Each structure stands twice: as structure tokens, then as C-alpha cells.
């Protein structure tokens, strides 16, 4: 079990390196610069963790690098949200959705973490709390984008959905694990590792599948007045005059 876990733990490193290569090859960087930064950071952090895995400072490296993951994850979610809202709904009130989600999540996380007596030290408690906050935002964005797919016709094959699905699935499992870890403490560490590693591997595979295709640029819509029925009549007359084979 321990060996399998170790294999799974480090297997994401080559997968992430492939993802990085795919993003460069498919020129996806210009569409998702923050996600690229996230993947690049993930690769570098994984290398550092691998090198220091038997060193005494490893726990510090692990947790502090995880805190940066959480921050970058939130930024990537904002990047996804901006692209989707630009593509689908360009209305002023839509811009309020993301900040509202972040503020709501912060309040919820503070309430939740303060309600639990944990055996973690304060720095660890803050890092785990911050991670849980990021996970809630990721789950929220996944739910929102799923709503966009079901209701507004966002394509499930779109990279934005793939990104949020990867983050959302990992976040749901990781949130459960972090919550239990926060509540139970270090006794939960093995289960926490298994759940986190497996769900993260699944997420990376999802991202790999999505980024194996090129990102299509969003065509900016013109601000000219909408098509009218008079336009249609004119177009119909022209079409009638065109001889068809």
C-alpha cells in the first residue's frame, strides 16, 4: 500500500510535465496564463518536494508550498470565470458573482474553522483553513460552470469546463479530506494522502485530455445593433436570386 501510494504520489510529476509541454505546444499559454503558472509551479514544487523528501524540512516545504497552490488555484478560478463570463454573459451584475463567492467562502471558512477545536498549531491551522477556502471556491466554480453547461449552452468540451471540472473534482475529495484532517488531526493522515493523491491524479488526467486539443480564441462580438427582420427580408431576397445547383 505504502509503495503504491509513493508511486501515485510522484506519478503526477511526469503527468504535469507532459501537461506543461502540451500547453506550450498547443499555444494554450496565451489563453490561460495563470493556469500555466499553476502547472509550472506544480512541477517545480513537486521537484523540490521530491529532492527534499527525506529531509527534516520537508513538512515545512510541503505545507508552505501547498499554501501557494491554494492562492494560485483561486487565481486560476478567476481566470476561468472571466473567460466564461466574457464568452457567455457580458453584464455588469455578472462581475459581482466571483467576489461574492470569495467573500462568502471566506466567511464560511472562518465560521467553520473557529467552530472546531483542533490539535494543529496556529500556522498549520491557517494553511489548512486557507486550503479549505480555496477548495470551496473551486467547488463553487465547478457548480457554476456545470450550470452554464446545462442552462446556457457552454460546451462541456470547452477548456474552461475541463479546468473547473479538474479543480472541482479534486477540491470535493480534498475538501472532505482536509475537513476530516482539520477535525481529527494527524490520525487521519494516511487516508488524507490516499484521497488527495488519487483525486489529484484524476484531475491532472482530465486536464491532459482537455489540453490535448487547441484552445479556440473567443471571437469578439461587434457592438453594432442586433439583426432585424428587415435585414432578414433583404437577405432572403438576395438568397432567392442566387441560382442553386
Amino acid at each position, binding site marked *: 500500500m505504502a509503495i503504491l501510494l509513493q508511486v501515485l504520489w510522484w506519478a503526477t510529476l511526469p503527468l504535469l510535465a507532459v501537461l506543461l509541454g502540451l500547453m506550450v505546444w498547443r499555444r494554450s499559454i496565451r489563453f490561460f496564463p495563470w493556469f500555466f503558472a499553476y502547472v509550472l509551479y506544480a512541477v517545480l514544487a513537486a521537484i523540490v518536494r521530491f529532492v527534499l523528501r527525506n529531509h527534516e524540512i520537508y513538512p515545512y516545504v510541503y505545507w508552505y508550498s501547498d499554501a501557494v497552490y491554494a492562492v494560485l488555484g483561486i487565481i486560476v478560478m478567476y481566470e476561468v470565470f472571466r473567460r466564461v463570463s466574457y464568452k457567455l454573459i457580458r453584464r455588469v451584475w455578472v462581475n459581482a458573482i466571483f467576489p461574492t463567492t470569495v467573500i462568502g467562502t471566506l466567511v464560511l471558512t472562518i465560521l467553520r474553522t473557529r467552530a472546531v477545536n483542533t490539535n494543529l498549531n496556529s500556522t498549520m491551522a491557517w494553511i489548512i483553513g486557507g486550503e479549505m477556502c480555496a477548495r470551496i471556491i473551486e467547488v463553487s466554480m465547478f457548480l457554476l460552470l456545470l450550470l452554464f453547461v446545462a*442552462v446556457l449552452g457552454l460546451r*462541456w468540451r470547452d477548456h474552461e469546463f475541463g479546468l473547473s471540472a479538474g479543480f472541482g473534482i479534486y477540491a470535493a475529495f480534498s475538501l472532505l479530506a482536509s475537513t476530516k484532517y482539520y477535525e481529527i488531526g494527524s490520525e487521519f493522515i494516511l487516508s488524507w494522502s490516499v484521497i488527495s493523491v488519487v483525486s489529484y491524479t484524476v484531475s491532472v488526467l482530465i486536464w491532459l485530455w482537455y489540453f490535448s486539443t487547441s484552445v479556440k480564441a473567443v471571437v469578439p462580438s461587434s457592438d453594432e445593433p442586433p439583426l432585424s427582420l428587415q435585414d432578414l427580408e433583404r*437577405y432572403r431576397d438576395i438568397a432567392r436570386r442566387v441560382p442553386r445547383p
Partner: protein
Amino acid sequence: MISYVIWYLFITAGFIAAALAIWLMWFRFPDRTIDDVTDYLLPVDFEKAESLLDPQTEAILRKELSPEEFRALQRKRIHHYLALVQRMAHNAAVLIEWANLEARTATGQKLEMVTKLQQVGVEVRLYSLLALIKLRFWLLIRVESWKILPAPSLDDMRQVGGVKGLESYDRLKTAASFLFIEMGQGNFEELLQNL
């Protein structure tokens, strides 16, 4: 306690969303081509929708009928408009699916038309979603029966969430017809009839 419940609701929602995503992918309509459009549309009686939202018609009804009769009729009119909005939402979804497929290969002028159809389709879907929520809420709380408040006016449904419903739907019909013609389809009269 509340934060505990909300917290675990989020976790549960994450798992349900993952299952739902798989469900949506599995049961989705296969790539919708131009041949899979007209037969799948549900005709919307546009004039009927206009008359339901017409403030003058409503004012006459209010004047001619007793308050009880008007409230009873208004509930039926809400149901009628709800049925029309559901059809509008369905048609917009069909057209968005078609536009999404065309967007993969379209270039130049055709791509512009496809994009326009996608955007107007999303507008109609947004309007439909918000309008359905509002109409169902009216039906849920039986707002037409509250004697201390005036019966709801369907004229309020003209614009929901900043989207003018019937105007957007009109633009959707036009955008779909443009793309139909652009793709060399002669039967766009059928398309207009079914929209």
C-alpha cells in the same frame, strides 16, 4: 451548526456535480448538425406571447372583469406564458448546440454568424431561466390570490435580468435564419415556422 451544515452541503454538492457532469456528457445529444435542427424545434406563437405581455390588453381585462375573475384568468395567463417561455428555452438550446458544432469549423463571415447565434441564444436562455424562476415563484406563492396586493402584471416579464425576452427571441430567429441561408439551406421558411 449552520456553518457545519453548509460546509458539508458544499462537499456533497461537489460530488453530486461530478456525477451530474458524467450524466450530462453521457446523455447529451450527439453532435447537432444542420439536419438536426428544424425537426427538434417547438413552434412558439409569437403573437400570442406579444398579446400576453401587452399592457393594454391586460388593462382592458382588469377593467372588464371582476377582481376575482381577473385573478383566476391571470393565473391561466401565467401558465400560458410559462409554456411559451419553456419552448423558447428549448429552441434556444437546440440552436446553441447547432452553433457550437458549427463554431468548430467556421471561419470568416460564417464564424461571425455562428458567434452571433451563440450569443443571442445564450441571451434567450438567460432570459428563459430567470423568467421561469419568476413565473414559477408567482405560481408557488399564488401571488394572484393575495387580495391585499394587486395581481401580478405579465408586462413585468418583458425584461428580466436586463434581457428583453421577446426582442432577444426575435433576434435569435433572425440569427438562425441568416446562418441557415449562409449554409445554403433553402428550407429556412420551415425553420421560421418552427421557431
